């Protein structure tokens, strides 16, 4: 049997961790760039915004190209109703031809009275089976968006969602590096205890390991506990 450590897996774990180390800042930046690009891409658009929602529909991150979009957006999440929430929940593109004659979200439409917002188009951001949030664009005139614009925004939302799904998982690397750290610490402890037994009883490394395993079986402890005990019993500091 080869005496090499199984480091192939470790190096791929480390590579994964490095690739995944994206900060909250990067998520916000990506969302901002996407909102700006959506505004540019669809003719007649006054402003664009993106909201990322958790599974309960709470906003985790958002970006808007303008103050107006920001206000229209915030109103939706405060009132708990609006085209983007519907787009997110129903996983369908929502087209509002004119906010002033719209009846689906009465409270939100009333709140829009003073804002120069008439047309709204909102499409869900879905990656795989996950609904990440919604992308929306607003226009100052009614009837700006139609089926054609819907299709365009959906085309835009596909790759945007894939990108965001990868940027979003900021929790993942933390979890991976925690388990890697624990694994290495434990392995190190076992190696040290094995060395102590080798020296103490004149054993080979494999025999010392077997000895540890049989102690674990008789004492009903875990290998790590047994090893920690052996190490703790060594008088370290003198005086």
């Amino acid at each position: 049997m080869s005496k090499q450590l199984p480091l192939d897996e470790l190096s791929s774990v480390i590579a994964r961790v490095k690739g995944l180390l994206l900060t909250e800042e990067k998520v916000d930046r990506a969302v901002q760039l996407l909102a700006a690009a959506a505004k540019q891409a669809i003719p007649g658009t006054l402003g664009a915004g993106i909201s990322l929602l958790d599974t309960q529909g709470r906003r985790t991150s958002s970006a808007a190209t303008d103050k107006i979009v920001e206000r229209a957006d915030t109103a939706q999440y405060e009132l708990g109703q609006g085209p983007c929430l519907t787009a997110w929940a129903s996983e369908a593109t929502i087209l509002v031809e004119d906010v002033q004659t719209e009846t689906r979200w009465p409270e939100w439409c009333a709140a829009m009275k003073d804002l120069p917002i008439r047309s709204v188009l909102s499409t869900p951001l879905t990656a795989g089976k996950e609904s990440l949030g919604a992308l929306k664009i607003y226009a100052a005139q009614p009837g700006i968006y139609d089926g054609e614009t819907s299709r365009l925004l959906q085309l835009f939302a596909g790759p945007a969602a894939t990108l965001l799904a990868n940027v979003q998982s900021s929790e993942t690397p933390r979890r991976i590096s925690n388990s890697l750290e624990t694994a290495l610490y434990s392995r190190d402890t076992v190696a040290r205890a094995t060395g102590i037994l080798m020296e103490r009883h004149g054993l080979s490394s494999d025999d010392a390991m077997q000895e540890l395993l049989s102690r674990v079986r008789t004492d009903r402890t875990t290998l790590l506990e047994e090893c920690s005990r052996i190490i703790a019993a060594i008088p370290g500091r003198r005086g």
Partner: protein
Amino acid sequence: MGFEAHEEEQCRLLRKALKSADITPADLWLAYFSIGGAVGEYEVDAYLQGLFSLPMLQRDLLACAANELIEAVPPLPRAPYAEELEDSHDAGGTGTKNSKRNT
């Protein structure tokens, strides 16, 4: 490559234990690596499928890793007997939300 005596049986029973505890080969490998296991995940996977032979020490380390994972799972909740419930109510004053806790 030859298989040692009992190796196949040891492997089969390990597989059975993993299956009933719902432990994936990846989880097993990480636990095995953590306690000083010397072969890679790929080889462990092949061993589990009966395609690869491992020395006794490595097999026992895998068994040890599996058992530690199995013991780490919290036991299933037990159904209480009436008497046990009475005891705990008397002692803790449950149901009155701390206001009448015995001291």
